[in-house]
């Protein structure tokens, strides 16, 4: 194991002015770029990598970590302020953040997102720094059969988000799976449902589908509802009550269990490569809702909803580094980009990383801790700035948001084709929410679909096609059992028997 002097030297490296300046710069860039509609945190990192070519390894990686963490905080901003999330995990934040912002409390909503994001992130960073080795071993034990059961569990959690029609929820999920199956199939690599368009070979571009159905569809809906009078995009009501501008300690403390649960869900799922923050954010949200004494207030601006979603999706990012640093296995696109930065600077990630590069890794840990503090600090200033920006007239905000989404998706997908796909999915998203189908369920199923199918294929190969052999996998059995219980539980609580007449809009 690494000795204490290496650890101290690493931390000392991180706290030099030069490195701190890069972390700060990264956080500022990340928060700013991440908050621009259509760009988001992962895009921010991909853009930042070339700028690190000329730097030493530690400042380069510290900068990227800053961008990554800043981007997470920034990514929640358009979701909360304009209901235009760029990624599905931010869609979970929008479910309660946007109603609160619409009530004239945008600062309170974004600050809650900031605080819970930093809380979740710090929790998983601490786990990473202290107990990454045992967690990595645990992650290795989770084989394909267990991951398949986990996917089933994730889908069962979706039933907690189904509004008033079970049938329509299932249709939305099925559509998501159908869109996920476009592209090569995981077992035989044959192109399917691509209709001769080889751009779809790797599947529908994630950025196009997510930004189209979540952000552009919402902008379309708002554009059509305008009366011809141009209002500010978000109105900050001056209620005279300073409580509406900030999050009090009591409010923060009241969410402690929600955030802790979110942080734990995020940390565990983040340690498993390839699951991603979407499942974490929604699992945390659904469990916060079902644990609440007042589940009806969720979706209407409940601080617990924001806390649950943000703490979980931010916690994923820290623990994504667990398989990366201990085994050299990237858990997400963001982690893959950090590996790429390691390689550019001559460092080969793998099982010997701690031994070979201990000082650098502890320097990275130091930078991560500093990035969390700086995030909090920069966020306080940055959020005021963004709230000010979206107080501009709707006309310019929506026109600019559209242009930015066009540019962002074009950069992410490499051309105008991806932007046209985005617009098509905006149309689909608009129609779905008009007819009362949950876009959120659709997008989660779309994001989980590929992992679901490949783990189904892997499980069948491992069990030789014999499902009875699942009794050899106790963790998987347990997860499947929990799935059945949670479906029963969720449907009993919010099930289709509630015969409220439904005026469903995009918020469901």
């Amino acid at each position, binding site marked *: 194991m690494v000795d204490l002097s290496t650890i101290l030297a690493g931390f000392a490296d991180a706290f030099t002015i030069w490195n701190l300046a890069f972390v700060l710069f990264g956080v500022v860039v990340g928060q700013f770029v991440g908050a621009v509609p259509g760009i988001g945190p992962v895009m921010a990192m991909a853009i930042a990598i070339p700028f690190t070519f000329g730097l030493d390894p530690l400042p380069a990686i510290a900068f990227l970590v800053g961008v990554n963490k800043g981007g997470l905080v920034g990514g929640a901003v358009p979701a909360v302020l304009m209901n235009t999330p760029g990624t599905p995990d931010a869609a979970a934040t929008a479910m309660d953040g946007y109603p609160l912002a619409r009530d004239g409390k945008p600062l309170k909503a974004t600050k809650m997102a900031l605080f819970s994001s930093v809380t979740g992130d710090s929790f998983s960073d601490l786990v990473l720094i202290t107990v990454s080795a045992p967690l990595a071993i645990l992650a290795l034990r989770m084989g394909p059969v267990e991951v398949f059961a986990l996917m089933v569990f994730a889908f069962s959690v979706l039933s907690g988000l189904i509004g008033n*029609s079970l*049938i*329509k929820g*299932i*249709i939305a999920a*099925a*559509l998501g*799976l*159908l869109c996920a*199956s476009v592209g090569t*199939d995981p*077992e*035989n690599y*044959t*192109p*399917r*449902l*691509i*209709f001769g368009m080889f751009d779809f070979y790797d599947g529908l571009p994630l950025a196009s589908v997510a930004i189209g159905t979540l952000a552009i569809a919402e902008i*379309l809906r708002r*554009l*059509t*509802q*305008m*009366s011809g009078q*141009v209002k500010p995009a978000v109105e900050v009501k001056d209620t005279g009550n300073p409580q509406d501008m900030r999050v009090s300690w009591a409010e923060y403390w009241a969410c402690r269990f929600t955030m802790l649960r979110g942080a734990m869900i995020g940390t565990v799922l983040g340690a498993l490569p390839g699951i991603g923050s979407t499942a974490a954010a929604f699992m945390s949200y659904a469990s916060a809702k079902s644990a609440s004494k007042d589940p009806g207030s969720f979706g209407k601006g409940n601080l617990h909803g924001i806390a649950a979603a943000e703490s979980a999706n931010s916690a994923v990012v820290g623990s994504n580094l667990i398989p990366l640093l201990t085994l050299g296995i990237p858990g997400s696109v963001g982690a893959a980009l950090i590996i790429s930065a390691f390689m550019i600077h001559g460092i080969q990630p793998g099982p010997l990383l701690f031994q070979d590069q201990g000082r650098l890794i502890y320097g990275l840990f130091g930078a991560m801790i500093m990035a969390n503090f700086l995030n909090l600090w920069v966020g306080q200033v940055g959020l005021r700035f963004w709230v000010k920006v979206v107080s*501009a*007239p*709707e*006309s*310019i905000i929506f*026109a*600019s948001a*559209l*242009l*930015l989404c*066009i*540019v962002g998706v*074009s*950069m992410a997908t490499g051309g*105008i084709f991806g*932007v*046209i796909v985005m*617009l098509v999915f905006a*149309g689909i998203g*608009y129609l779905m929410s*008009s*007819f*009362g*189908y949950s876009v959120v369920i659709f997008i989660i199923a779309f994001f989980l679909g590929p992992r679901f*199918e490949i783990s*189904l*294929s892997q499980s*069948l*190969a491992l069990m030789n*096609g014999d499902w009875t052999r699942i009794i050899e996998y106790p963790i998987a059995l347990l997860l499947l059992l929990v799935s059945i219980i949670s479906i029963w539980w969720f449907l009993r609580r919010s099930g289709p028997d509630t015969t409220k*007449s*439904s*005026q*469903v809009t995009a918020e469901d």
Partner: protein
Amino acid sequence: MKINADRASGLFFLLFGLALYLFIIPTFVEQVEGGWVHPDTVPNAVAIVLSLCGALLMLRPTKHHTQEASEFVRAGLYFGLLMVGLVLMGRFGFIYVAPMIALAIMLLIGERRPFWLVCGVVGMPGAIWLLVVQVLDRALP
């Protein structure tokens, strides 16, 4: 029987699921021998679920109401405008087309104040150009 939004969308998904199962999937998914999960396993399952749920929804619709038809028309208008804009952008480039898209949308929303119009039509595309091309060294569409 009055036309209900759920009956309409249920019928759509019933037919869509059948079309997928009977025509689209057999034509556009390659057949493979051996293996566990065939390329058409998941799509076929989805197609069956879609048509079953569509049929069920027709039988037991909720009381969901869609918005007014005029709103759909307006949405279609914006959609068409953006689609034309994107096709033009593919031909002539962002720098020429983006200001026109911005102008059209701002005018349709009802913005008439010259200051904000200039901001949206000149300022924003200019700022994007500066950021993407000059600072980030990336290509605009």
